[in-house]
């Protein structure tokens, strides 16, 4: 090594190094001396000053979390409450024989191995005389069992905490949502001072949307603590301001009827008051128990819910996007009338299929041999596809797309909940942007019968139904009816919001699409007459829809029996009642339900019957 470095003078370098090491050593000793001086200054010179400060430090500031606001339905039925939840806690230092205590406890209440396991693990990380929870959420029976025998278990006690509870459980999971433990992402988002002492936060639905109102204002108290940190007395107290109580427009009984009407089928129902936008029922089936999420859902249970093929966690009413099918034919008809493409009384011959000029492709009608001679009334009543193919070809996609947009197709309704999706209103510009392709004339035809690219949520369909019912007056659907005042009495009613209305040049154009909707229900050739309209005691306006889940070749026949269940058509219905003075607008979707007339319309009828006549099916 050294031979390669003739100029390296080992001896001189070593001397230099020694000098440097000594210098370094001196610096180190001096700096340590500085630390010593500093600590002497703190601990000896200023000792009494800091000693006083330390004494005064026995006063501690504690946060008092506010009780969360309650949620009621429109009739004052409690939908979300704060309930004491009882848990069994153990102070290890006061227990004589832990194993014996656990053995005797398990004869009184249901203690499973995983609970004992978790308990033993949390024992390791505890402070002296700290109570460790053994079993959460005692049932009333377990509580009573233990209370009677409490004297036999020194060191074991019941603690009450306040926990959110949803008495209607599954029925309202998709509307109200739930609260859960504040997670890391939320921790970064919220004001940690406002949430001091609070463990739960709204995760979904109304609980999430109205978090600000429901949460309230945190309070504080100054307490004196002893050397063990136990509170000796409260010196000063600024009580928390409870969260505001909400009253929803929902009618929980109507909700139950609607849920029942679906009879176990997967789907969604939205019912609203077209006059003010109040949502009366919003159902998405299947559903789940929101109470599971409040205390932290076990991983297994959550995975079962998430991987469930029927997707109970998915809110179909707001997040489900479906081809609207024939339910939007009135809108297309109205566009035709407004642009002078059709006249309501002019007949055309609707065969079993339609072809574009210079094209051999056949655009088929749902009825094999067509509907014969039809005018607009019959085209809606019997849902002729060919009539609308012909009209839309002459109307063109640009005018049709613009007119559907006026009703809010492809635009979120802005409902006061979470997870709402926008659906899709196809247009020439949209297709160029999304697919980089020009618009083909054939796509105009299938758009006119609500197929192809077009998508809508059940909530949007209810909103469109409401706009039809009000002859163009739109209203933003909302779940909040009002907020209770701080005295718990006064109701601050939420003001309805009215987006720009759909205006038509001649008022009779409304009649020309709305009267056929009554014929759908009440004329023997109507698509919902047999299944839903025939024996109704009041006038209903409605429209059925059946939307394809998968495409058929133009020479193929759709045969319900031979198609797998998950590929079967979606059944849809929109409508309102009473037809001459609408008070309820409804949209129904049944996933893979088959025919809209046979399956979806009777569901809507049951909901309307209860609302109109209080008849329970």
């Amino acid at each position, binding site marked *: 090594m050294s031979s390669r470095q003739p100029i390296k003078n080992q001896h001189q*370098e070593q001397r230099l190094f020694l000098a440097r*090491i000594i210098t*370094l050593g001196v610096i180190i000793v001096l700096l340590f001396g*500085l*630390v010593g001086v500093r600590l002497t200054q703190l*601990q000896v010179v200023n000792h009494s000053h800091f*000693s006083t400060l*330390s004494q005064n430090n026995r006063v501690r500031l504690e946060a008092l979390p506010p009780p969360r606001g309650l949620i009621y339905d429109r009739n004052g039925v409690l939908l979300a409450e704060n309930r004491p939840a009882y848990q069994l806690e153990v102070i290890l230092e006061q227990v004589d024989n832990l194993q014996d205590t656990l053995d005797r406890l398990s004869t009184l209440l249901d203690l499973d191995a995983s609970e004992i396991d978790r308990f033993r693990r949390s024992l390791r*990380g505890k402070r002296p005389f700290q109570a460790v929870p053994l079993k959460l959420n005692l049932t009333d029976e377990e509580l009573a069992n233990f209370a009677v025998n409490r004297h036999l278990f020194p060191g074991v006690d019941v603690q009450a905490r306040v926990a959110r509870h949803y008495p209607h459980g599954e029925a309202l999971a998709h509307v109200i949502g739930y609260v859960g433990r504040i997670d890391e992402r939320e921790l970064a988002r919220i004001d940690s001072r406002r949430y001091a002492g609070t463990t739960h936060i709204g995760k979904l639905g109304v609980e999430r949307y109205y978090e600000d109102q429901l949460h309230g204002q945190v309070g504080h108290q100054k307490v004196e603590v002893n050397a063990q940190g136990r509170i000796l007395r409260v010196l000063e107290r600024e009580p928390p301001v409870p969260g505001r109580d909400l009253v929803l427009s929902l009618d929980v009984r109507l909700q139950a009827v609607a849920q029942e009407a679906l009879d176990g089928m997967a789907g969604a129902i939205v019912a609203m008051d077209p006059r003010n936008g109040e949502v009366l029922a919003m159902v998405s089936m299947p559903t789940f128990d929101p109470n599971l999420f409040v205390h932290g859902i076990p991983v297994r249970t959550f995975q079962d819910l998430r991987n469930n093929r029927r997707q109970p966690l998915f809110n179909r009413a707001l997040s489900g996007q479906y081809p609207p099918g024939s339910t939007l034919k009135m809108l297309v008809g109205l566009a035709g009338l407004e642009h002078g493409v059709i006249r309501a009384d002019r007949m055309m011959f609707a065969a079993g299929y339609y072809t574009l000029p210079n094209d051999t492709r056949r655009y088929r009608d749902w009825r094999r041999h067509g509907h014969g001679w039809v005018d607009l009334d019959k085209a809606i009543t019997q849902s002729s596809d060919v009539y609308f193919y012909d009209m839309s070809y002459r109307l063109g996609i640009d005018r049709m797309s613009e007119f559907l947009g006026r009703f809010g197709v492809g635009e979120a309704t802005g409902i006061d909940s979470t997870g709402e999706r926008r659906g899709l209103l196809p247009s020439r510009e949209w297709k160029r942007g999304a697919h980089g392709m020009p618009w083909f004339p054939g796509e105009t035809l299938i758009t006119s019968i609500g197929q192809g690219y077009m998508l809508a949520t059940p909530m949007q369909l209810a909103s469109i139904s409401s706009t039809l019912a009000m002859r163009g007056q739109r209203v933003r659907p909302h779940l909040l009816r009002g907020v209770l005042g701080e005295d718990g009495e006064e109701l601050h009613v939420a003001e309805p919001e009215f987006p720009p209305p759909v205006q038509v040049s001649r008022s009779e154009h409304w009649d020309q699409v709305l009267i056929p909707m009554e014929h759908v229900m009440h004329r023997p050739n109507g698509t919902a007459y047999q299944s839903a309209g025939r024996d109704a005691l009041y006038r209903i306006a409605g429209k059925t829809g059946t939307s394809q889940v998968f495409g058929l070749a133009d020479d193929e026949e759709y045969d319900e029996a031979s198609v797998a269940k998950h590929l079967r058509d979606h059944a849809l219905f929109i409508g309102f009642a009473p037809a001459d003075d609408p008070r309820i607008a409804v949209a129904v979707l049944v996933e893979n339900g088959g025919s809209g007339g046979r399956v979806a319309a009777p569901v809507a009828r049951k909901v309307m019957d209860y609302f109109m006549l209080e008849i329970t099916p």
Partner: protein
Amino acid sequence: MLNGTAEEHGLGRAIVRALHLDLLLLGGVALLLAMGFVVLYSASGENLDTLYRQGVRVGIAFTILMVMAQIPAHHLRQWSPWVYAAGILLLLGVMLFGEVGKGAQRWLDLGVVRFQPSEFMKIAVPMTVAWYFADRPLPPRFLEVVAAGLLVMVPAVLIAKQPDLGTALLVAGSGLVIIFLAGVRWRILMGLGALALVAAPVLWHFMQDYQRRRVLTLLNPESDPLGAGYHIIQSKIAIGSGGLYGKGWLNGTQSQLEFLPERSTDFIFAVYAEEFGLMGVLLLLSLYLLVILRGLTIALRAQDTYSRLLAGSLSFTFFVYVFVNMGMVSGLLPVVGVPLPLFSYGGTSMVTLMAAFGILMSINSHRRLLA
């Protein structure tokens, strides 16, 4: 000098020798670790789980010490530039793909282990600067000082940008001290010092907001008693109220009543000072000084330039740890997030420290074998 013949007696010492360990260094470290456990028990609120986890870390770290002690320094020297290059790549990796923890990008997720490359650089940088000077005639010329300075500053700046000022400071210190030990002339040193004074305002400009706040808080902690100043105020109260003899083990009100933040990690010294008083503090300082001086002795007795410089740097880095931590906890220095070595709860720095002690022991014990 200190051990010479004395060490050749007894079976225990023979084993220690065979394992390439150093009794004095090992004894000092073990004593500090033992005291650390005693304080941690109190600081964590008598939490046995915390002690258990710290015990596991010490076990792992001690294994690494044993391994490092078996590797002769000339091997380390050959690996130095590669280790350095790998470290720089990892730092760039953290910048691009790193996991964000507590607002800073320091972690690299390698699937099995989460890894903090900046910690690794605390050893890689001194190894490389020592390697750079090893075969050059000393004292170094000006250009060589600049080159070595670049070797130090590149990783230091990368780490400071994460942002992790505490580790950047330690890495920079570990490299710069080698330039000093290599015998850089005093006038170059003075010139660089003057340059640093000029550069300070520029550095201020590049600091993150929270870093500036810490410096300002140091100058006047009472200006923000519930925010950034809270740590310093509470820790000064803890230390000051401890007095000459302390409040006694488990009786520190500041720490037991949870007024003191981060009392198991960066501020554990305040717990110690509160419960054991100035007497305990002086004992602790002496122990740390013993370990540091032992390290410097090993550096002095090392037989080649590389070992000498490396041993000197590792001992000095250990000192910087102790000084910066005690300085920040007692309000002498800004809060920069440096743990108290062998005391603070936490795994990453423990492993690096013990690896450094392993290297020191190897330098000491492989000496005669090489000669």
